[in-house]
């Protein structure tokens, strides 16, 4: 109710039909009126059924009194329990024995007041004296006890049901989270896979350079080791820094620039403030590989690849641009087509709809891949 409107149960929640209306203060008030009136009408019907020929009070009068009594009791219990929850939110969540005792006393008191006060008011008597006159309470107390027992039983049933539902929901959520983590890890591993062609061609270049240009061969081997180390750790780690990811892209581009000679030019433009940002690994590398494989490599005169990053307004923006063949003209390559759909799937499981991958056509030629990632608190500068 006031403290926890979303999860506050009502006796009517026992029935699945009434659970369709999501819990709220307004709903619970309506339900209390409904529930109390139902009990009042049932009791009137029972009274007539058990006492057909005895003293027969007139039906409207009896029904009116019962409804008034049951609603008074209902709303008093409603208010008392809500007040208790509002005053001691922590204790009511833990359901201690002290809390149970308070609930029993409050319900009993509500029942006693509900049975005596409306009746006394209708008769024109002073309600306080009706409560306090010796002997008047005696028949009321057992009736109050019945109301208390019924209400407490319903409360306990509802609490057990909610506990079960919470546990089931929690388990569902854990299963979904585990599945998502697994899918993310699988896709990340896929993207960290090193293409055999790349490895063989790079090693062939190293071999070809060892005799004639040993310094350059050494440089290539060192860069290859950087690249392999970063790729391998990326397939295991869940987080990397933007700087480390850009270094990986740099190692890759450097290797290709040696291999392709003058046909490939590249540069990375990133401000130092962005480099410390944490991002998921292997988000940039597929874009760089695409720029090489679909952009510059198939173009006879080669081209330039530029990686730009900026971070502002809660967004990390990474752009990989080339002036190569363009995606429309690039001949299909084995294994080249799945990169982007994998990347999109990963972005969805990592950031939902807050991350975007856009592809733009450059003038006069080539493609820009733009990655927009949210800068959430967990991604703040370390």
């Amino acid at each position, binding site marked *: 109710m006031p403290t926890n409107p979303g999860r506050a149960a009502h006796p009517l929640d026992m029935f699945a039909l009434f659970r369709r209306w999501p819990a709220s203060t307004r709903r619970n008030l309506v339900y209390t009126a409904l529930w109390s009136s139902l009990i009042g009408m049932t009791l009137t019907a029972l009274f007539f059924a058990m006492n057909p020929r005895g003293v027969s009070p007139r039906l409207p009068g009896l029904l009116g009194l019962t409804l008034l009594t049951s609603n008074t009791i209902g709303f008093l219990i409603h208010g008392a329990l809500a007040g208790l929850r509002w005053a001691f939110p922590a204790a009511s969540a833990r359901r201690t024995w002290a809390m149970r005792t308070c609930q029993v006393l409050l319900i009993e008191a509500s029942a006693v007041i509900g049975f005596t006060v409306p009746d006394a008011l209708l008769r024109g008597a002073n309600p306080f004296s009706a409560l306090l006159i010796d002997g008047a309470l005696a028949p009321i107390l057992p009736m109050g006890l019945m109301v208390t027992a019924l209400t407490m039983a319903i409360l306990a049933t509802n609490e057990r049901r909610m506990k079960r539902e919470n546990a089931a929901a929690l388990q569902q959520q854990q299963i979904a989270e585990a599945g998502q983590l697994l899918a993310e890890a699988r896709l990340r591993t896929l993207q960290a896979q090193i293409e*055999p*062609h790349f490895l*063989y*061609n790079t*090693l*062939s*270049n190293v*071999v*070809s*350079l060892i*005799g*004639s240009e040993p310094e350059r061969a050494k440089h290539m081997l060192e860069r290859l080791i950087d690249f392999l180390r970063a790729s391998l750790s990326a397939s295991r780690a869940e987080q990397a820094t933007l700087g480390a990811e850009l270094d990986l892209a740099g190692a890759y581009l450097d290797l290709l620039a*040696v*291999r*392709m*000679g003058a*046909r490939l030019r590249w540069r990375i433009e990133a401000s130092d403030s962005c480099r410390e940002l944490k991002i998921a690994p292997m988000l940039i590398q597929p874009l760089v590989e695409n720029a090489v494989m679909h952009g510059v*490599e*198939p*173009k*006879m005169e080669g081209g330039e690849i530029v990686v730009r990053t900026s971070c502002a307004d809660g967004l990390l923006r990474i752009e990989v641009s080339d002036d190569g063949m363009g*995606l*429309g003209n690039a*001949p*299909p390559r*084995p294994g080249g087509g799945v990169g*982007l*759909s994998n990347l*999109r799937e990963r972005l*969805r499981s990592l950031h939902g*709809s807050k991350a*975007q991958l*856009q*592809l*733009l*056509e450059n003038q006069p030629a080539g*493609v820009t891949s733009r990655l927009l990632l949210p800068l959430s608190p967990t991604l703040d500068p370390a």
Partner: protein
Amino acid sequence: MTTALLADDEPHLLAYLEEQLATAWPELKIVGRAPNGIEALRLIDELAPDVVFLDIQMPGLNGLQLASRLSSGGSAPQVVFTTAHEQYALQAFDSEAFDYLLKPIRLERLQRTVARLKETLVAPAASAPTPSADTAAQLAAMLRQLGVPVPNAPAAPAAAPLQWIRAAQGQETRLIAVDEVIYFQSNDKYTSVFTPDAEHLIRTPLRQLREQLDEQKFWQIHRGVIVAAHHVAGTRTDFRGRLLVRLKGRPEELVVSRNFADLFRQM
């Protein structure tokens, strides 16, 4: 004297091959070096070398495409492929070319190739496979099997299905992969392209798009709507008896007009 042409887009590998050939075959005269397939084709036409060493992954024309053009000509050179490709590719064209060499090339392996080449060139009528029209057809078949587009294939399909859609967005031109599209909807003058997280407007009319799209993957369900089959989650009938399509990745439901309802009869 035997002449040779070398083609590779990676300059160090080209230089290294030349170096190794100088050791393995000192009398071989290297008449040309090409950094791409087009240049190689031009030089082969011009210089008519006896042997060509072709890399497979090259811009312009790749090695396989280049070889298929050579074999359809008259006095074709012997083709030796140099490649880092996997085994399946090697097996496929093993019988078509004179030889293939795996990179990095080992000198002993190159020496064996050279010895065989020398024999073949001295006695061309020997058993070595000389490219002919027949082997060209075989090679073309292999190429298609490998997924390499064959330039002069006689029964090429009219046009490949659309792969990328260009949509103007402010100053930029967005590229949308056709696989990402959930559905197309025609507006007054434009066509809306819906992807999981955006809507783009393009000028191409829906009717024209339909002709460019793969019929198996994109279904027209209404005069103004084409939906991607793999994004269809299911159908339901509403209280008015209309058939609606539910989508994966978008909340809205699309109406199927009566003329197209047959598409879903078996679903």
